[in-house]
């Protein structure tokens, strides 16, 4: 039972354990980036340590990432992002938990491409909002590559941008994810 203490994230992931392992895939090195075009300067950051589990039996997906893991080119931008906007010390993780509907029955035993309609709850900065998006799945040589992108409105997540810089920061950011999943054997 020791592992149950590890974190709430693990408890969330174990929630998916009701189905056979053969249908579950995991990545601990998922890549999520965000980008926003703004009059003063475009803002871009990358996180390459995203944890995600996808269950092809129950059609569930759980993804979680550390806000401090987003890396910017400029040190000051990264500092402002963590300290002033998303308050990473107080809200260290962002999480998505949802379900997907594929356009066709997914066969994990042969290469193929699928489109998914994804719905679920996205939690950032301690605020949870429902989102709907499209995603693609590619099955290739036993691994599963999932890709998606969607827009997030900063104010939907109670992220306050100081008035001094409000005109220089876009209200909407484009979030892009690509995950290379391997079979989950644990």
């Amino acid at each position, binding site marked *: 039972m*020791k*592992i149950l*203490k*590890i*974190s709430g*994230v*693990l408890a969330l*992931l174990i929630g998916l354990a009701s189905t056979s392992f053969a249908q579950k895939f995991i990545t*601990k*090195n998922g*890549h999520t980036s965000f980008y926003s075009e703004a009059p003063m300067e475009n803002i871009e950051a990358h996180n*390459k*340590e995203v*944890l995600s589990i996808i269950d092809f039996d129950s059609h569930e997906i759980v993804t*979680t*990432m*550390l806000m*401090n*893991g987003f*890396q*910017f*080119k*400029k*040190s*000051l931008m*990264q500092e402002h992002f*963590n300290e002033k906007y998303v308050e*990473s*010390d107080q809200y*260290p*993780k962002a999480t998505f938990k949802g379900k997907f509907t594929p356009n066709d029955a997914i066969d994990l035993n042969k290469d193929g491409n699928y489109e998914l309609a994804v719905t679920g709850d996205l939690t950032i900065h301690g605020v949870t909002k429902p989102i709907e998006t499209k995603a693609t799945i590619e099955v290739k040589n036993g691994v599963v590559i999932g890709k998606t992108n969607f827009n997030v409105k900063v104010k939907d997540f109670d992220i306050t941008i100081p008035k001094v810089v409000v005109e220089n920061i876009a209200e909407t950011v484009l979030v892009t994810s*690509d995950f*290379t999943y391997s079979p989950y054997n*644990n």
Partner: protein
Amino acid sequence: MKNFLKKYWIIPVLLIITLIGFSAYMYNKPRKNIINAGVKYKVSSKKLFADFESNENQANKRYLNQVIEVAGNVKEVSKNPQGDFIVVLDSDGGFGTVRGTLIKNQKIVIEEILPGDAITLKGICTGMLLDIILVDCYVMEKV
């Protein structure tokens, strides 16, 4: 005062130029260079994992965003889809480990690091998912 400024006009001009230069430097300053960065804590991978496992909030307060040196035994070396090396250190945590994403510039040949090797990683702790995550890692030494 007028005479003073006439004679020493260069002083405020130099001050303004210095201020603008300093602001531009601070604004454009790249991320921390891990190789030269000062180390806040030195800890074993087992102790680091145990600290997070026993009290994640407290461990976050201590380690989050800090440059730390973590000593441990290598469990696995792999590459992420972007081509960065990942070194996984054992933690006795069953499910969880300490995972470090390495910077490109290393003095040690990463391909020569094998499971079971004792190494010390220097990196920035970003927190805990299933594993403890370190980014911008540099391999300090291989015993």
